């Protein structure tokens, strides 16, 4: 079956705003009586063969908001272009993190590098920056949590996290935030790593975790049948945006992750109705090692 038209998706959105006399729409979906199965009718059907073309062919990521949770983004960098919004988490007067408009751009270069990669793969997505790195090591965990919470509450379509924390104290809160994002249809994409210590949030199953492959194709990715790392995207010798409008070559899962974030943006732009579960399923089906049909 053909992909849904945007209008169809809008119709679905309207259905949720029907007046209260429509009680069947108001019931929480804890159970499903047999006479109510029509309530969960899918707004569309997937084609018999889920292909890359169906999933993301022709997509530019238009209309999808991608948040770079990092060190800030240098707006106007030739590889980045416009940034639609930028905020920073700073320690407030009481020491607790607060959100302020980010006037500084990128304080380290890492976020600009990630943003440039996202822009290269999904050129028409909306880029947002939430700065949680750069103020030093101390207190960075708290700032990171507050930044992620804010980004999840704000409801970005995709959040790129080319970072992780090893602080066990933060693991349960991070886990809650990752699950909250998952159920709010925000896709969290996080860098995996192979260090001998536990780190988060990439290991949570509600996020999309990313390691590196060394092929020179930014839209090529693989599904890993041996998790916890779920996907491999381009991560070796990439020309990345660097501070002051320049570029350098770099390698690391930090740079594989924004490739995967951008691929998520491409699919979501074409299929905005997909839940994170469905999105992951589509990614599995179109992965280059052949989860689906046309690999």
């Amino acid at each position, binding site marked *: 079956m053909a992909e849904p038209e945007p209008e169809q998706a809008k119709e679905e959105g309207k259905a949720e705003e029907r007046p209260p006399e429509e009680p069947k729409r108001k019931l929480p979906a804890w159970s499903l009586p047999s006479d109510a199965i029509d309530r969960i009718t899918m707004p569309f059907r997937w084609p018999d063969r889920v292909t890359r073309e169906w999933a993301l062919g022709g997509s530019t990521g238009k209309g999808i908001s991608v948040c770079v949770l990092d*060190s800030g983004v240098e707006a106007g960098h030739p590889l980045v272009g416009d940034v639609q919004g930028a905020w920073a988490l700073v320690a407030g007067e009481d020491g607790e993190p607060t959100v302020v408009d980010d006037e500084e751009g990128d*304080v*380290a*270069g*890492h976020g600009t590098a990630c943003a440039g990669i996202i822009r290269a793969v999904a050129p028409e997505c909306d880029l947002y920056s939430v700065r949680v*790195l*750069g*103020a*030093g*090591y*101390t207190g*960075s965990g708290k700032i990171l949590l507050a930044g992620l919470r804010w980004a999840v509450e704000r409801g970005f379509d995709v959040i790129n996290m*080319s*970072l*992780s*924390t*090893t*602080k*066990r*104290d933060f693991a349960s809160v991070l886990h809650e935030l990752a699950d909250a994002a998952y159920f709010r249809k925000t896709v969290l994409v996080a*860098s995996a*790593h*192979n*260090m*001998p*210590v*536990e*780190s988060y949030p990439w290991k949570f199953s509600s996020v999309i975790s990313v390691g*590196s492959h*060394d092929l020179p194709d930014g839209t090529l990715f693989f599904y890993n049948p041996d998790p916890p790392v779920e996907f491999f995207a381009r991560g*070796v*010798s990439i020309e990345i945006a*660097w*501070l*002051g409008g*320049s*570029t*350098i*070559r*770099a*390698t*690391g*899962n*930090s740079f594989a992750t924004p490739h995967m974030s951008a691929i998520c943006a491409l699919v979501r732009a074409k299929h905005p109705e997909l839940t994170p579960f469905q999105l992951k399923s589509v990614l599995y089906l179109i992965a280059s090692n052949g989860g689906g049909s046309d690999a």
Partner: protein
Amino acid sequence: MPDDNLRAAVAAGVVGAEEAHRALLQSIVEVARAIFGAKASSVFLLDTDTDELVFEAVSGEGEDHLIGMRIPSGTGIAGWVVVTRQPLVVDDLHNDPRFARSVAERTGYVPNGLMAVPLLAEDRALGVLQVLDRASAGFSLEEMELLGLFANQAAIALELLQRARRAARAVADAGGDVVAAARLATTLEALPEERRDAASRLLVALADVLRADTQT
């Protein structure tokens, strides 16, 4: 002072532990440099009191003057690595004149490329291991894995060094009897085996006498 600190202080011998662990770190950066055919390799220790990264061991370029030098923990590539916990490899750094200038001002040596990996122990970030200007032009994922293995070793050495320093501080803070006990333990450790056995017997006997004294 907690007993385990005291025991650690005495067991580590306090005196000499710093040198031994430094030698271990030095050997790690030397081997890292040799394996990657690099111009330099270094280990940074994260000082959480001042939020700075401190050069603890350097092999190659800068080894004569960088030890002890400090940089803010949130900046530079070592800073990225420690805050993101992600290993990174960067090339073509000469393309960025600002980076070159700021690094040169600090260290006197501007690398064209570097690999950096966080040193982690349990849930703490201890520091960063860096390898500068390796011989191979391209970069393979295997090199990244190898660097990760080295990072484990360096993290263990760095943790031992930190523990020895904590123990030394604990002894210094405690003063008096504890310093005397630590000095005794160190002296004992340095004795030839024959005399050490005799001295140990003497000390055990002394402990028995003291214990008997307190029980009466």
